[in-house]
């Protein structure tokens, strides 16, 4: 098992009048090499959870195990987490700062103390993984399009060659095509590099297309988990957890008010809704 979390809680500013419990008694497992989706409304504890997995915060209670590194309230050495887990935060292109794309991507690996040759090799590799043409290496990142700037930021993280890649709303603010293409790139990295990918997203559409397993956070607690089909089977209850109910689920539930037998619960994608409707119609015609 790649990531094991047991009884994890986190309180910000504990012991002060401003104490705020962001995460409460969360236990979960994520398989190494899988594509994981985390959903939940703003303030549900998603960001706290990913920062704990990345070892950027120390838990108030419970523990996080990433491969054989352990993080608990007593942990002093969080270095293994820095090495294995990397986070692409929201709007990561705001953190670009170097004169050229290659220099920006090289910043992380250079800080690892690698030789110039190794750094160069990592930059080339990371650019290829992130889908950046090598001609961009000597350009200023600030002259690129928004979508390309985001890929440069992603490459900077990939150059650290993490085993776990965490992405917080990676497609926010991109146009539909840019969103689709970036997710395809991330999916390819996960498959080919056997990287564990954890993606936080508000978009059920994105999660349904890519995640093998998803976790639903609500008010600091884990309220549901499973494949997208299993989670979507909760139907309009998703709304009580502050989530957007996928449009095709709304439509299927509406149809089910007057269909006997009803359509299956937990339809993963709109194509699946279309095919079950077609099957029903053909069945009706022949029967």
């Amino acid at each position: 098992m790649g990531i094991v979390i047991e009884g994890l809680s986190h309180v910000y500013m504990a012991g002060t009048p401003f104490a705020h419990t962001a995460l409460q008694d969360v236990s979960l497992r994520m398989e190494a090499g899988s594509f994981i989706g985390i959903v939940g409304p703003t303030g549900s504890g998603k960001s706290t959870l990913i920062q704990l997995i990345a070892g950027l915060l120390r838990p108030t209670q419970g523990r996080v195990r990433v491969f054989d590194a352990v993080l608990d309230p007593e942990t002093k050495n969080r270095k293994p987490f820095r090495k294995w887990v990397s986070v692409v935060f929201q709007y990561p292109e705001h953190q670009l700062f170097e004169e050229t794309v290659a220099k920006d991507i090289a910043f992380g690996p250079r800080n690892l103390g690698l030789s110039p040759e190794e750094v160069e090799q990592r930059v080339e590799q990371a650019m290829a993984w992130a889908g950046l043409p090598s001609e961009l290496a000597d350009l200023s990142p600030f002259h690129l399009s928004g979508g390309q700037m985001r890929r440069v930021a992603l490459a900077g993280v990939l150059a650290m060659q993490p085993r776990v890649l965490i992405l917080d709303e990676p497609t926010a603010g991109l146009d539909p095509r840019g969103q689709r293409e970036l997710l395809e790139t991330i999916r390819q990295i996960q498959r080919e590099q056997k990287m564990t990918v954890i993606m936080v997203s508000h978009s059920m559409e994105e999660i349904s297309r890519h995640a093998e397993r998803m976790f639903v956070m609500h008010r600091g607690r884990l309220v549901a988990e499973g494949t997208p089909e299993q989670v979507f089977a909760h139907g309009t209850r998703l709304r009580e957890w502050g989530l957007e109910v996928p449009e095709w689920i709304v439509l299927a539930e509406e149809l089910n008010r007057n269909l006997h037998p009803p359509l299956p619960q937990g339809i993963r994608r709109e194509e699946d809704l279309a095919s079950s409707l077609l099957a029903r119609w053909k069945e009706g015609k022949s029967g």
Partner: protein
Amino acid sequence: MAPIVEVHEVFYHYFPEKTPRSQWALQGVNLRIDPGEYVAVMGPNGSGKSTLAKLLNGLLLPTEGCVRVMGKDTRNAEDLWEIRRQVGMVFQNPDNQIVGATVRDDVAFGMENLGVPRAEMLRRIPEVLSQMGLAGREEDSPHHLSGGQKQRLAIAGILAMKPAVILFDESTSMLDPAGRDDVMQAIQDLHRQGTTVVHITHSAREASLADRLVVMAEGRVQMQGAPGEVFRQGERLRDWDLEPPLIYRLQEQLQKQGMPLTGTASDTKELVNELWGLLSKG
């Protein structure tokens, strides 16, 4: 009825001398917007939609052609202040639009620039804040507001300047689903109260709420009409990397597979009724 905004044969490029005409951002845009209308604009990145938005309130001036707001040409420097007051703009990033240390100061900022008398400011602030559902938050720091509330605050600041038109340039794209609903509700309320609304968006679902949908691509208006009419032309939309909302996609897909749908449903209820009819016939 005289249009409130009129865009006539507009061509635009940031450096027109250095760039061949075929690469200009706008290449002959024509558009009329009537008072009180609610227009959505969709288009892929680079289609010129944000350039168009900046031309509508004189932040940019056309390289060729003209833009008129309430009959005033944006190229007349003496009318520019009035045009900018009449056409308010809400941008994408809520954090980049906030200047005040408190909600009240933030709303006052635009009015101060216009030289609105203090007594009038004190009258308008509570009015626009309650209109945007922020009554009682006057003393709060804007940084404690949610993303949706910050956008509502930006709208309140614009409303206080009493504009005729409000332009939303991807104002929902950085918000979470709750924030998006919040801003979409505000847009619909403004429209109902008579404000002319132009909403640039990547979301087909949001665009379907407008009276009219304009599709921009390659620097021109490529399609326009009632959202339902435009969305029923899935093939053409896909030429521009755009997708219609789910109910249109589903009708298209099912019809292609031979299901005898009329293809005219424009909301969930209509589609569900039609499907019930087909699936229960047996």
